[in-house]
């Protein structure tokens, strides 16, 4: 079990499932719960097939360093985007993600279309939000081989969000999404930097790329969290925005 990976995985999955739930909830008000949950289930089914196909392709026996490099680059692609967006939002350069606004926008889109168009919105919403969860599960599982633990963690996050969402039948607006994205973004950039460099330099250096080994990961996370926080006032000042 790769415990350090479970927390970012759980948080990432929770945030993505909240976004998917908002879309499914908006669609359910037009085509009903059965059809919208059916569309969400179809989206999750597509993701399951994708996971099975990925597992099959990866069992072909790729070089460990090549795998680490691919995982590292994917995590950088994902983490850099999340951390940059979280900083921009905290600095006031970008509007905070608003589940109520997302809910209203989805409702407006559905009102212009028919039953199938609404079904497709729920399907696509679940598939695209779930795709980010899939990415993280695959990336962490390739390293730790803890496919079951990581998959179950993502499923637990989904069940918690679903239970909370169905109990209030409203967009889950109290989730501190930007704070979560800030922390998770920093953690994912840390993992991405760690694995990418390990893959490039590891084979050439006697102790591997990172002298502290896995203990370099918390140090990297602190560096990116502190660095990200330091960037917020700088970006705010550069944009001419008042201090909050």
């Amino acid at each position, binding site marked *: 079990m790769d415990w350090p990976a479970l927390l970012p995985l759980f948080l990432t999955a929770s945030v993505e499932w909240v976004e998917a739930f908002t879309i499914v909830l908006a669609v359910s008000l037009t085509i009903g719960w059965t059809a919208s949950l059916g569309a969400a289930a179809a989206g999750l089914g597509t993701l399951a097939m994708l996971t099975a196909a990925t597992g099959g392709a990866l069992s072909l026996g790729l070089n460990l360093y090549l795998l680490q490099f691919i995982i590292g680059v994917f995590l950088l*692609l994902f983490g850099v985007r999340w951390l940059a967006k979280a900083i921009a939002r905290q600095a006031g350069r970008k509007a905070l993600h608003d589940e109520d606004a997302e809910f209203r926008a989805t409702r407006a889109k559905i009102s212009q279309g028919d039953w199938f168009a609404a079904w497709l919105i729920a399907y696509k919403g679940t598939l695209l939000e779930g795709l980010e969860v899939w990415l993280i599960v695959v990336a962490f599982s390739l390293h730790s081989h803890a496919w079951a633990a990581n998959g179950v963690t993502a499923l637990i996050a989904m069940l918690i969000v679903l239970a909370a969402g169905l109990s209030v039948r409203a967009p889950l607006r109290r989730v501190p999404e930007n704070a979560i994205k800030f922390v998770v973004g920093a953690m994912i950039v840390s993992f991405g930097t760690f694995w990418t460099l390990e893959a490039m330099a590891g084979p050439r250096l006697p102790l591997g790329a990172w*002298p502290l080994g896995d203990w370099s990961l918390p140090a990297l996370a602190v560096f990116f969290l502190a660095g990200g926080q330091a960037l917020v006032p700088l970006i705010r000042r550069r944009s001419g925005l008042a201090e909050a």
Partner: protein
Amino acid sequence: MKAFIKTLFGDIRNLAGVAVIVAVGAAFVAAGYGGWAVFAMPAAALAVVAALAGQ
């Protein structure tokens, strides 16, 4: 399909930023300064994050 690709890779600026981070690490390793890459690569990553956040 476009949304699928964008979800996986982000936009062109994101791709370019990650290419810079990897290039910095690769340059240090290729020049025989792999030990210094542990400082250079995180610094490059934070610089890319700053550039993307400031746009």
